[in-house]
């Protein structure tokens, strides 16, 4: 206080006074001081998560606007709005109010389209962010839990998307709900009960839109917000990862501090994301419910698809061969539903716990703050490529009918090809990716040891031709040699002199991961190569 009074005559700016006022009452400066000095490494791939965060903010803003006008009721009304081809048609209040938002409320269609486009971008950005984190190994200790939180948010985002897609009660959303209803009813014993519980009676009932609305605007967003807070807190606690470069270690984070540079950039970036979404929303139609019309269980349109992020599940259902069901104990067992659900469940579970699997295989308990280059973890990169291929095939399968019409193919041909690709694609992708990674590592090794090929051929006095190799500068070399190389774990008996099954499994996995490997160039090797090249 005394210092404040002595300093006051020197600088009496309004902002200074205001910030003093606030700080004396909130002690905000400690927080700003701590956070503002945080370094945030600079790389484009570190902004992918921010795209997701900012599109979520856009979703919240536009969604709030929509709640002012949307009525989550399935009571029947006759549409009296201004869209001619639906005039006088019976529909639910939910559908009618969505049409009103689209045609009769100023700016309503723009906001609705922005909300939907932002939702698509939100999930897409999460997906890309997750791929970045996976392929650079940024999920390793201490960030395993943040990976799990992030992945749970990805699932919740899909839930948010699907509940939102179902709210307008148009034909497309009703068809989507019918598929969910069918999947639930496909579960033995509990299926029918669960469906009746969810829909408050036989599908479609009159309750589902109201229930989904509560999930969509209250429960899921609250959980998402809480998880986002924890996710970001963990980023601060753990520090951000950075890519290998001189001065960057496993103990520090190198980059501009959050205040002022990074905060300004991120703030500006928010407005860029907002602007891009506004531009898209103003130029491109999304989910034209006026074409789809009100939900009626009898019609199903050709080309009925879910939004892209549910596509992989739709594709899984489409790829099941016919006849996968049998009758036992007077019940039909629908393997055509159970198999895809189990396969996708295992896929999702594997992605969720992958950090723990890899930590167990490597047995590495150290912290990792330097992100891997994908080539330097060939097996992980190959597993990731296989997973991406698997997902991509399922995703493509969801649009099998459009692939058939647009490329003039037969529907059956597309489906059978994708069925084969679902099994073979990931295997091929695994081996190709692994070999490509190892080849790239070999190239790096060559470059470190012998420098770049300059393309300059020199004839020596003795008549010998050699190509001059340009040596690497130290900074570049550091980037190429500073990575971890693991060796397969040795199988050793424990203190009782036994080798357990778990250990065997672990050793086997470790061998699978690290048997083929290229070790980074050591100092000795480097000196030896310099030695020979001097001669």
């Amino acid at each position, binding site marked *: 206080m005394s210092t404040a009074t002595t300093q006051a005559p020197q600088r009496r700016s309004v902002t200074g006074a205001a910030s003093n006022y606030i700080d004396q009452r909130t002690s905000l400066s400690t927080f700003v001081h701590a956070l503002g000095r945080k370094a945030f490494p*600079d*790389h*484009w*791939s*570190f*902004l*992918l998560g921010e*795209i997701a965060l900012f599109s979520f903010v856009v979703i919240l803003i536009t969604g709030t606007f929509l709640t002012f006008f949307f009525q989550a009721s399935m009571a029947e009304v006759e549409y009296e709005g201004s869209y*001619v*081809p*639906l*005039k006088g*048609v019976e529909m639910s209040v939910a559908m009618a109010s969505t049409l009103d938002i*689209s045609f009769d409320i100023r700016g309503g*269609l723009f906001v609705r*389209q922005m909300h939907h*486009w932002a939702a*698509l*971008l939100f999930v*897409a*950005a999460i997906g*890309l962010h997750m791929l970045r984190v996976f392929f650079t190994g940024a999920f390793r200790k201490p960030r395993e839990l943040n990976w799990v939180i992030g992945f749970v948010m990805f699932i919740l985002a899909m839930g948010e998307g699907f509940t939102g897609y179902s709210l307008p009660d148009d*034909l*497309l959303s009703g068809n989507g709900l019918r598929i969910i209803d069918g999947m639930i009813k496909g579960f033995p014993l509990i299926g029918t009960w669960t469906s009746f519980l969810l829909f408050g009676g036989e599908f479609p009932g009159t309750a589902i839109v109201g229930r989904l609305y509560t999930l969509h605007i209250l429960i899921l967003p609250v959980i998402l917000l809480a998880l986002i807070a924890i996710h970001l807190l963990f980023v601060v606690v753990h520090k951000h990862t950075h890519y290998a470069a001189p001065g960057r270690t496993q103990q520090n984070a190198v980059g*501009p501090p959050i205040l002022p*540079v990074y905060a300004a950039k991120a703030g500006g*970036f928010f407005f*860029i*994301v907002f602007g*891009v979404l506004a531009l*898209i929303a103003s*130029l*491109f*139609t*999304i989910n*034209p419910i006026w*074409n789809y*019309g009100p939900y*009626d269980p009898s*019609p*199903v*349109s*050709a*080309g*009925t*698809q*879910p*939004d*892209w992020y549910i*596509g992989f599940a739709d594709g899984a259902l489409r790829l099941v061969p016919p006849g996968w069901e049998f009758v036992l104990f007077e019940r039909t067992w629908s393997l055509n539903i159970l198999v895809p659900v189990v396969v996708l469940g295992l896929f999702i579970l594997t992605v969720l716990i992958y950090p723990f699997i890899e930590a167990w295989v490597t047995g590495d308990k150290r912290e990792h703050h330097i992100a891997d280059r994908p080539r330097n973890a060939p097996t992980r990169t190959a597993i990731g490529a296989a997973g991406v291929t698997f997902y991509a095939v399922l995703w493509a399968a969801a*649009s099998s*009918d*459009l692939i*058939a*019409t647009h490329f*003039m*193919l*037969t*529907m*059956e041909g597309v489906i059978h090809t994708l069925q084969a690709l679902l099994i073979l694609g990931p295997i091929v992708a695994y081996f190709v990716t692994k070999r490509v990674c190892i080849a790239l590592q070999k190239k790096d090794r060559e470059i470190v040891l012998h420098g770049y090929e300059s393309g300059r051929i020199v004839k020596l006095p003795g008549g010998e031709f050699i190509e001059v190799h340009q040596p690497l500068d130290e900074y570049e070399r550091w980037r190429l040699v500073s990575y971890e190389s693991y060796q397969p774990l040795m199988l050793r008996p424990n203190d009782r002199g036994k080798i357990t099954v778990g250990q065997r499994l672990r050793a086997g996995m470790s061998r699978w991961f690290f048997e083929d490997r290229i070790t980074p160039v050591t100092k000795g090797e480097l000196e030896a190569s310099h030695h020979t090249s001097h001669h």
Partner: protein
Amino acid sequence: MTRSKRRTGRRHPLATAALLALGLVFTGGAYAAFSTTTAQAEPSPTSQETIEEGKKLFQANCATCHGLDAQGTSEGPSLIGVGAASVDFQVGTGRMPMQMQGPQAQVKPPQFTDEQVKQLAYYVGSLGPGPDIPADSLVNGGGDAANGAELFRINCAMCHNVAGAGGALTEGKYAPPLTDVSGVHIYEAMVTGPQNMPVFNDLNITPEDKRDIITYLQYVQDNRSPGGFELGSLGPVAEGLFIWIFGLGAIVAITVWITAKSN
């Protein structure tokens, strides 16, 4: 023109252009009136001349597959009793004469003039009773678009897609997009069931209901989406591809720019 003369005593600078435009409108209008009257005058469904001309065209262009008297061969079905509407649709949309055997005949630019199509249609129509070319009042819209939209969703959308964007069928067959089809061809398709399409006869969907369906499709053709570009009216697949390639693509390009500046 006269006004500008009175005011300045000279011709208005735009007078020449106006005169030219007027002349063009007159000649064009007269030509259009002349050509439509000739087109209307020529093929009369009952005149023997029309049928004779149609027969000649048929024997020269269609008989290889359908037989000299349209009785059908191993290559193509009999056309006795298919009606004038069927021929008007198949030939008028360019599907016949067929370019090649395949899962279904494909749309291509029509091979005959309007007049020739009508001659062919009335010739085949004269061979046996069948659906006739519909009256103009049924195919020029003016019906209840809301009723038509509902009927379209219930009867047509499962193959042709709710927005008439088309869809896939089995074995390489498909329901074509309806975004660019004339009212008369839509009507004829409903009554004759071309390719893999079922027949919607007048007991199934009355002529007035057919008119409503056409009214709805014409509404969709004439009124583009209020939300902006439609991305082919293909629904979530097109939207998903768009956001990944253009939405996320643009923003990732911007992230590269943001981080590159500081380096």
